[in-house]
């Protein structure tokens, strides 16, 4: 009896002991990820939201995307010739694009990168428990705007594309069939309308560079032009034009000059670059790609004689702000280059062996370089002499663009002269005489010279060709030519090209996407 009782006591104590100690390691499975944020432990407060929005803008710096490569598509136009060593750029320039080219692939993936970052913000910002409501609203507006911007570019480049929204993020479902371009544009419109509601009209000094209501209105105006919704384009474009916060800058060059960009009311949306000298901060590569090689750039894009000739004789302000011609100098350009035998032409005749900081013939195959994306460090520090100044902001949308879109819409709606007011605002700012009864042809000319090198020309041409406002064939069948001056002698840089309709309106969907989707995403017709 006693023995049995002892057993019971013994057993009880043992069980108790086991129970007490069973919890030595509390909740071994509830491990917290530390030293690394995730969607579970981020998005706690306002600071997280601000950084999360910065993270969307961050993708704009990307070289393979807005930070440069997107500009290579504009080289299909008659303005600019591809001079670099990227074979895919050259193939695309002559309408020889195929689904495996790098540019076709990276544009796609970084567009969706921007969309993905925005989708995360749209998904999580509403869940942040406590934050300033104005900032929450603004941040949502920024996310919608940036998502719309990426979809707008996708629709320009590829046409029909899959629509990925915050719902797909939640479901981890990315294999989605393409939506027709009309649905993509409807999504862009819907996002931009939300953004226009949520974004402030202006920002304080610390937040300049963020997108505003004006940017959203401007993008709506542009979208509607692509949709031939002229009246809507006028409505939203006019909001920009009538708002003093988005007034044209006093000088055309203010848009492309360090120091005059940050508070410039005309710049609706730009990549807000920061100097590489200060720290290891990201910056777009556009200056690197557009600045001539001898001046520490890579010299990828060189304007054609066809483009240079488009400027009116009196249009010297815009021409000088847009093009560098042989013999031109640029402020703070301190790289001194020896004049070679091949350079001893034009103003350098007989100067072989001497040195200069001016542009030499050997720096371009056409006789010109793009000026808008080139600036040099001006801080006077000897070791910085001649270095590219990456502080140059990269405007993506300017009020002048909107003025001309509204002018175009009015001309198309009301006939020649309908857009005189908006057109002339742009012309007079450039120091030119106003026009009266401006025609569509004059509008087309104005857009070409006002926005040269800003990645608008080719999309304009495509848009106008679809509307039978221009004939693309006559444009591309004209060879791209170099300057008539020696040593170029007007040589043909790119011979006549052939544009195939409708194939060449859009790029092919990247082959990798087609393969990965296992039949869900279909290749664009004609590829």
């Amino acid at each position, binding site marked *: 009896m006693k023995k049995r009782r002892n057993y019971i006591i013994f057993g009880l104590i043992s069980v108790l002991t086991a129970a007490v100690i069973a919890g030595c390691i509390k909740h071994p499975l509830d491990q917290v990820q530390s030293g690394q944020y*995730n969607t579970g432990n981020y998005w706690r407060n306002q600071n997280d939201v601000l950084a999360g929005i910065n993270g969307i*803008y961050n993708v704009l710096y990307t070289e393979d995307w807005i930070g440069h490569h997107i500009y290579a598509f504009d080289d299909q136009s008659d303005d600019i010739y591809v001079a670099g060593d990227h074979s895919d750029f050259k193939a695309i320039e002559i309408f020889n694009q195929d689904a495996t080219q790098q540019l076709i692939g990276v544009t796609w993936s970084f567009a969706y990168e921007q969309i993905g970052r925005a989708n995360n913000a749209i998904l999580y910002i509403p869940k942040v428990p406590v934050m300033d409501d104005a900032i929450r609203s603004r941040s949502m507006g920024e996310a919608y705007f940036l998502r719309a911007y990426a979809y707008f570019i996708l629709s320009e480049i590829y046409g029909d594309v899959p629509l990925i929204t915050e719902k797909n993020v939640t479901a981890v479902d990315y294999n989605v069939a393409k939506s027709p371009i009309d649905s993509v544009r409807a999504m862009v419109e819907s996002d931009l309308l939300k953004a226009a509601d949520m974004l402030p009209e202006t920002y304080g000094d610390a937040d300049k560079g963020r997108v505003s209501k004006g940017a959203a209105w401007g993008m709506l105006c542009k979208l509607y032009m692509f949709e031939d919704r002229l009246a809507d384009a006028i409505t939203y474009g006019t909001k920009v034009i009538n708002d003093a916060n988005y007034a044209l800058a006093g000088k055309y060059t203010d848009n492309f000059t360090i120091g005059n960009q940050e508070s410039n009311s005309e710049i609706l949306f730009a990549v807000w670059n920061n100097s590489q000298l200060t720290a290891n*901060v990201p910056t777009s590569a556009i200056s690197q790609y557009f600045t001539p090689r001898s001046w520490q750039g890579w010299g990828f894009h060189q304007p054609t004689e066809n483009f240079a000739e488009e400027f009116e004789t009196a249009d010297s302000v815009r021409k000088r702000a847009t093009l560098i011609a042989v013999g031109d100098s640029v402020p703070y350009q301190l790289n001194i280059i020896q004049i070679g035998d091949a350079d001893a032409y034009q103003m350098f005749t007989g100067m072989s062996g001497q040195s200069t900081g001016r542009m030499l013939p050997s720096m371009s195959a056409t006789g010109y370089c793009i000026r808008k994306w080139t600036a040099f460090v001006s801080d006077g520090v000897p070791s910085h002499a001649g270095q590219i100044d990456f502080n140059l902001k990269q405007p993506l949308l300017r009020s002048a663009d909107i003025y001309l879109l509204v002018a175009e819409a009015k001309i198309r709606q009301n006939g020649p002269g309908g857009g005189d007011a908006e057109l002339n605002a742009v012309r007079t700012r450039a120091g030119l005489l106003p026009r009266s009864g401006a025609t569509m042809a004059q509008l087309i000319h104005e857009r070409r010279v006002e926005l040269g090198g800003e990645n608008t020309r080719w999309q304009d041409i495509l848009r106008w060709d679809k509307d039978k406002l221009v004939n693309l064939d006559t444009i591309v069948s004209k060879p791209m030519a170099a300057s008539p001056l020696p040593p170029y002698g007007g040589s043909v840089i790119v011979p006549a090209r052939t544009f195939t309709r409708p194939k060449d309106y859009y790029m092919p969907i990247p082959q990798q996407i087609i393969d990965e989707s296992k039949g869900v995403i279909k290749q664009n017709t004609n590829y």
Partner: protein
Amino acid sequence: MVKICFALLMTLCLQVSAHGYSQEKFSFHVRQVGAHEIFNAIQQESKYRFFYNNDYLRQLGKVDLDVTDAPLASILDQVLAGKFGYTIRDGRKVIITPVKSSAPPGSTVPGNSPAKPDTAVKGKITDEGGKPLGGVTVRLGKGGRAVQTDENGNYSIDAETGDELVISYVGYKEQRVKLDGSKNIPVQLQPNATGLADAVVVGYGTQRKRDVTGSVSTVKGDDFKNLPVSNAADALQGRASGVDIIRDDGSPGSNPSIRIRGTGTVNNSDPLVVIDGVPANGLNDVNPNDIASIEILKDASSSAIYGSRAANGVVLITTKKGNFGEQLKTTISYYNGFDKAAKYLDLLTAPDLVKLKQEAYTNDGLTVPGVWTSGAYATQKTDWQRALFNTGHTQNADFAARGGNNTSTYSFSGNYYDQKGMIDNSFFKRYSFRINSEHKVFDRLKVGENIVYSHTNGSAPNTKSSQTGLVWSAIRFNPGIPVKNPDGSWGSSKADGQLGDINNPVATADEVQKSDQFDRILANGYAELEIIKGLKLRANYGYDQSTEDFYEFDNALANQTRGPSSASLTRGSGKSWSFLEEYYLTYNKSFGSHSLNLTGGYSAQTFKGNYFNASRIGYDDTSIYQRVLNLGNSSSAGNTGFNTPSAGLQSYFVRANYAFMGKYLLTGTFRADGSSKFAPGKRWGYFPAFSAGWRVSDEDFFRDNVKAINSLKITGGWGELGNQNIGDFQYLSGIGYGGGGGLGGGGYGYSTGTGTVYQNGAYVISIANPNITWERAVMTNISAELTTLNNHLSATITYFNKNTTDMLIPYQLVETFGAQNGNGLATDDAGNISLPDLNLGKINNHGLEIELNYSNTVGKLGYSFGANGSIIRNKVTKLFGNSVYLAGPIYGRENVDISRTYEGQPVASFYGYKTAGLYQSQDDINKAADIANDPNKGNIKPGDVHFRDLNGDGIIDDKDRTRLGDPNPKFEFGVHGSMNYKGFDLSFNFAGATGFSLYDADRLVGLDATQVYNWYAEQNGRWHGAGTSNSIPRLSINNLNDNYRSSDMWVKNGAYVSLKSIALGYTIPKVTIADVKIPEIRIYVSSYNTFTITGYKGYTPELGYTNPGASGPSVQNPYAVTPGLQRGVDVAQYPTARNFTIGGTVSF
């Protein structure tokens, strides 16, 4: 926390006064069974072991027994029924004896006549302890006459010289003694090694070998003691079937990869290593001489008790311990050996190289560069392999003191291992101290601990890079350059680009000061309480902590082509730690012919770690005393710090072993495992396993009819196991945060404001897979174990089939989530986002394993031989479909795409073009259908490689590539043996493999005429006219046919057999001379990696992984989870050295 809990358990238990240990009691309710069956049943349930003459038991016939809770004595009285007596020795050895005085000394077995005194041979038969054994049958080899010993163990038998005595007794090994004319022949019997008492360590307990129904290989520590290896895994090579030890390189302190039953997953397929009950990370901190045994649990049933981490098998390490009631035994041992390169490659000498370089340029109509015509490098100055490989040294000293009294056991050991590699500044050192002890607090309560502290310090040069790898460099460095110039500076290739952009390998080896030190404490404490008879509660707590201190000073090598121009210092520090707690109950119960063993419990383990490192570049004073971070250039300072992902595991497990009559065996295991690597809701995996065994030889029909086979057991099992060795927190979407970046993007943040101020940003950098969960391996196992030839030969043959399902593979999502980061798939994307693994893949491994062991004693010669072999087939049965593959690393500067893992092929198969020799003439080229439409046809010249056009389009392009070979051996084997005669002992161990291919990537570079480096001597036999060669292409600098692309020209048969170790020793026994106790001394000479027989021409056919599965995170490689997707590729790894050692052991 753990300490407090442990103390609590102790206190609570101390309040309980335990009853005295009750005598073991047994219940039987059986009718008409043989006495041996009753004895077997008792042996299974108790500590008792039976020894008897089989004839006695036959005389007893069948018996009935009906007792409940009867002590042994009363059972024996009933069974033996007064016909025989018994004695019990050491409290556990039950020896059945003739009834006292029932037979006179030397009595004969009925039917035999008594011995004649003049031809009689006499002697005493004793047990292993020297005590006499009565009733032992002593039989003559010829004629079969037999006698039995009396109760004093004496026998006397009439025999002739030349005959032999055969002594047999159940429980002991049979012995045969040749009669050489001596009249007094005493014989000491040894317990049967394959007998009942052999225990096998299984998870959470031990089991007798005869009862095991799973597939377990055991390697005893004595089999590899004093082998000059730093890592016990090296010693396992060739010793157990189904266990593949893959040596990734021969550098000091390198850890081989262990693969059990093939490569089970494309993720980390390392087995779980459990050291004295604590799951630990690898074997490299364990002194091999401290190991008592290594058990390898191979099948699902045996490893299921470790279900969560057992999919790749389990390696159980049991260290040596003292025994209760054992006198102190002290052992001191020391060895010292040297290592030499086993092989050198034949390379061109300087004059030949110059000649061939000239030919290469001339062949292409190019101007020969001045460096090859000036004669400056035409004189042989240095054999760089011999300059780099010196003599290495390995020495080891250890001591151990072990023993115990009635209530305590103790073991204390220390070890110093010091290996200096063949290459300067490559070394590995280890100091380790271990304390194991166990104490009986009461009869019912035992407590104990195992504690080991180890300090290791090592450095191995990079020998896997084809940019800077040291061996790679030595093979390629120009032989016309001296090691040092006359002015004392290092010889350099900087003078001319034609000499290659390689640094002097000797300079690199000498000028780098590197060390990676680890301090590790692996401790566990346990308490075991017997609650009621047969029911035990055990608590086990483990703590494993490792701290790392990394130091690397790279001196400036300004006169070298690759620099560095400035000296740099990197310091790193890290710590990782893991807690384990386990509670489990075991219950043993027999009722009648049934016996049941239940084990069930709870286990939890957590893992954490953190690391940081810092570096500076630029040291004005590079003296060894000024190498601190503060003295480096502060503007170059860099630092990083991070936590390794924390992880936790939680498990409930239960196992039941059931035996009926000791011959029908059943095991069922069930385990529920939770892992923090998966999302809540996906964490728990449930892993069942079953196995059954039938001891056929215990059946009467077998016993009566099959005399040749002593025992036969057939087992079979099925089970599911889990694997969670994958990246952590993949169920969450990672967010990158901070600044950083640069031209062209990157970083996380954005600049805003009129002043353009940069602000931190954040965005998603990995996509979550909320559904990620366990990989599962389903394994089937069928096995037969038998012993024959009087238990001298034991054999096991096993078939297994293992299917891994839900294998986690990096999956290619459609790239509409963002810009993907390159992640091992065939992608050249340079985006930001990593993709999670998805449970998609499948892999199959199946094969056959055979183990044979033979041991015998003939007179004073004892010998044993073992052989094992494994046939394994590996195939990835599902990936994403057959167009997508998992990429291995791209080789070197030539970007050779060597290894690809495709669905339907073995893991890491070689990939490239098929060839058909060389084109011998222009006519061959004109006629070749393979290049009929090839646009490159005009560039192909006689002497170029004839690549095969596999898709029949007449063009050689990427579409013609195919699988070229399988680096996974289809058959691996080992043969080992040991012999002892008087004081001499000899042992050896061979390992080998066949049925696999190797990829000689180093030879590809060594014959590549476009390479500016030195070439293989084989280049002398290059094609230089029709018929001169069909395998080594013409020399061409332009190489327009791309002769050196990945092709079957570089794929070789890897078959080899290697004498891994051989040792010859002599033991001087312990004696006492005039009151002076002379200890037992053994001295020996041994060799490791003695020779390899192979057709493979590189340094060694044992090439291992070039991107091994990580052995855990470290300062340099914090998130090391790279799977081994490239195997058997020769990248001029640190070759394995041949070692010769001399050593001695002194035992007091």
